[in-house]
């Protein structure tokens, strides 16, 4: 009975519709908003001597929200995307530093460090990990949480 029901509705049109729905829902999940701190961000990059050659940059304050940081570090370990990662933070546990060291071998990650925690003197709205898209004239960004990290960093 179930097979019949499934066969009856699994025509190409239905699959296309479902695919569209899936793509639409993914696009909704990956919505980014305009980044109002673009100017400060560019000044910050100059201050830490980071030249960005990728479309996406993740600002990763290692001493912020533990769950968010740990999830981002876990996803960055496996990502195939080419992303710049800017690490900052004053008090970072050894356990977390070990996870960071693992990322260095990933050639697709362009890692920069903000050694003097200069990020705190700029308006970046990055009190937990954020992903900034710099591919267009007007940058966009999103806060990365344990719930959306995989969608932005792995897919």
């Amino acid at each position, binding site marked *: 009975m179930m097979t019949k029901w499934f066969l009856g509705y699994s025509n190409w049109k239905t699959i296309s519709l479902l695919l569209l729905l899936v793509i639409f829902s993914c696009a909704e999940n990956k919505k980014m908003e305009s980044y109002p701190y673009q100017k400060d961000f560019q000044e910050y990059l100059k201050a830490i001597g980071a030249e960005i050659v990728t479309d996406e940059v993740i600002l990763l304050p290692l001493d912020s929200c533990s769950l968010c940081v740990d999830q981002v570090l876990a996803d960055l370990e496996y990502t195939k995307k080419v992303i710049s990662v800017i690490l900052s933070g004053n008090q970072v546990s050894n356990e977390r530093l070990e996870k960071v060291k693992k990322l260095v071998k990933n050639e697709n990650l362009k890692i920069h460090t903000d050694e003097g925690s200069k990020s705190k003197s700029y308006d*970046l*709205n990055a009190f937990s990990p954020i992903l900034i898209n710099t591919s267009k004239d007007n940058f966009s960004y999103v806060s990365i949480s344990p719930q959306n990290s995989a969608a932005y960093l792995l897919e």
Partner: protein
Amino acid sequence: MRPSMKAAFANLYYMKNIWLTLVCFFFLIGCSQHIERPSIVIEINHKALNQNTLTLSGSKIILIDSLTLPFYDYFQLIEEEDNSYLIGMNRQSVSLDFIPLGGNQPIRHLAFDDDGPGAISPDLDIFHYFGEDSIVTIQDRDNRLKVFNSDGELVNSYPKKIRDSKGMEMYTVAYSYLGQWPVFLDSVWILPVYPDLDVKSKGYYDRNKFMVFDPVNNEVLGEFGQYPGIYKGDNYFDILREPSLTHNSDCSFLVTFPADPSIYEYQLDQDSVIWHQYPTWNNFQNEGVKRDSDFQQFVNHYLTSAWFQQLTYDPFHHVYYRFAKEKQELRKANGEKKTAFEADWMVFILSEALDPIGFYSLDAVRFNPMFSFVTQEGLYIYDNQRANDDQMVFGVFELEDN
């Protein structure tokens, strides 16, 4: 039937329904033990008399071992066998550290299980040491509270469900670094709570902040701590929303809000609140940010604006200490942003009657007002200047006349 008679009967029927409704209403009110206080507001205006101040009388240096932290955001002071102990919640090793404030006793560590029913979360909200076999832990959304012994073994757990007078489930919390602590009395506990509502929504500020909880019967007996009007307007205060609760020996409960100079005094058996007003502190009133501001805008506001920290009772001198941060510029001359501690900080001294009787200008770069407590020796405030990593250092401040 004549129209007038018909109308009279209809009115009678209507009246009967009203009476029935009223009787039911009062019956239900009478049955309810949960009281939302208070209904009467008594206003008192206070004028400042600057007669007293504090002096830094010395430093208290405590040698700590490698398992002990130099700074605790959540702690309790206890007396045990003529010794005073500071119990700190160690969120790194998930333990309670018993640090003697005098004598030669070693530091004890009560470690909890890593896993299983006896485990607790590093972000535990509340603990309270009643005695060796009665250490209570409360986690905000956990529907049971746990009781441990001094070996860290789980002795028992009890159901916990907290609903306010409107029937909404409330979750326990303690923003201890903002001076928000629960109060544990013999029969009831006064617990800070939050509703499952977005903190930016106006509904969040329509709830009372403290629940009078009877742990034996798992029942809320009353609630108090209404948000003042400033929080109910169009502006938003983020973490500057959390009030502190201070208990003195007279069974009064004092509620203070970071944005508001006033002090709200409640008593559990009274239907009134005493609204203590301080016009001389109006420059510390915080205006908040627009409700649609992002967190960066709030943080800049937090750094630059004035606000109040905790109110601490000194039972040895019968005075209160109220910590407050002054306004400051956002940046230093070199363009770097200032921290909140680089502002001027005040410790206001209040009499038992809550009259301001003096103040002290605190160097908050050195002394951290977020880790302070009172002993017989004076007001202890955490000192950032320590010679070695194996030290926990406090400045000890004594009350004196001007």
